């Protein structure tokens, strides 16, 4: 019998009660959130529960919502149940002043590089990550470029040759 979104939701609510919130379904894909402290418990439940078995971490990424005060940065986990071919999306939100989130590397080895990338672009500090350093950008970079906290054009830049661009 195929695993339906209602069944997944029931299982989660049964286990976590009102700690899992924000259930919504977009284009047939279930999405929900919880407090960031719960992320490992929820992920572990999704992986280990006999009927759920979301054993594959498709993607892990960050999103910055600058207007969402106190919860500016979202960490999004995309999980895949290969047996039933069902996907879900799980989000936790964190304060951009102290973006500490527990690492999922213990559950998914593939989370290692994805978390490094998320750290690289959004500055999410994955607590317990074995090697949390920049992966795509130059190591000397001292900011997190995908955060929406910079003007569209940085007037203080000196590495652009104005003569060539007529500015």
């Amino acid at each position, binding site marked *: 019998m195929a695993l339906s979104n209602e069944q997944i939701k029931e299982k989660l609510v049964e286990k976590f009660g009102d700690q899992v919130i924000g259930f919504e379904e977009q284009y047939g894909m279930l999405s929900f959130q919880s407090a960031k402290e719960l992320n490992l418990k929820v992920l572990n439940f999704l992986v280990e529960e006999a009927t759920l078995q979301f054993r594959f971490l498709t993607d892990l990424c960050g999103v910055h919502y600058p207007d969402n005060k106190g919860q500016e940065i979202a960490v999004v986990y995309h999980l895949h149940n290969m047996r039933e071919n069902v996907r879900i999306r799980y989000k936790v939100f964190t304060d951009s002043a102290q973006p500490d989130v527990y690492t999922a590397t213990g559950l998914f080895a593939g989370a290692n590089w994805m978390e490094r990338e998320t750290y690289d672009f959004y500055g999410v500090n994955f607590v317990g990550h074995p090697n949390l350093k920049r992966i*795509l*950008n*130059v190591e000397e*970079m001292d900011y997190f*470029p995908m955060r929406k906290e910079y003007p569209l*054009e940085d007037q203080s830049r000196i*590495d*652009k*040759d104005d003569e*060539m*661009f007529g500015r």
Partner: protein
Amino acid sequence: MRPVSYNIKKKPLEADISMAEMPEGHQGQGFFATTLDNVIGLARKNSLWPLPFATSCCGIEFMATMAATYDIARFGSERVGFSPRQCDLLMVMGTIAKKMGPVVKQVYLQMAEPRWVIAVGACASSGGIFDTYSVLQGIDQVVPVDVYVPGCPPRPEAILDGLMRIQDLVGKESLRRRNSEQYKALLESYGIQ
């Protein structure tokens, strides 16, 4: 017959062998005298070994430049080397990310003097449309550049024009230039040597 046809007119052969232009000098029966600069410049400019550093679409245009239609071999540059140790001309074609910058510099350092650099296309010359945190805004931030070829990407004709300008520079370069104070200062400004 198709409405448009190419290469249908017979072209008469102008010369059996193409020859490089003779440098200025004095000649008489059995001798020809010119400066060493001229002779070496002549030899160097007609046997440039390019090292293609192709990272994006400009590299595709360079491939066309190498192929039969445009044929970079006509300029003595058919020997494209993939080892910087053997090459004279570094051709950087395409976007260079900041993380790639040290690699370009490393390749430049591995080339033996005399060496020349040509930046092909808007990205290599100035960052091009990639006015962003991750892209090097022109390779002249990391290595000295001799010729810039504009275009996004440039046509093969433009790349050939760039190569001919390099040939011009090579042919006219004084043998003392690479030992001069200005040249040392130039390299020093890039933190080389």
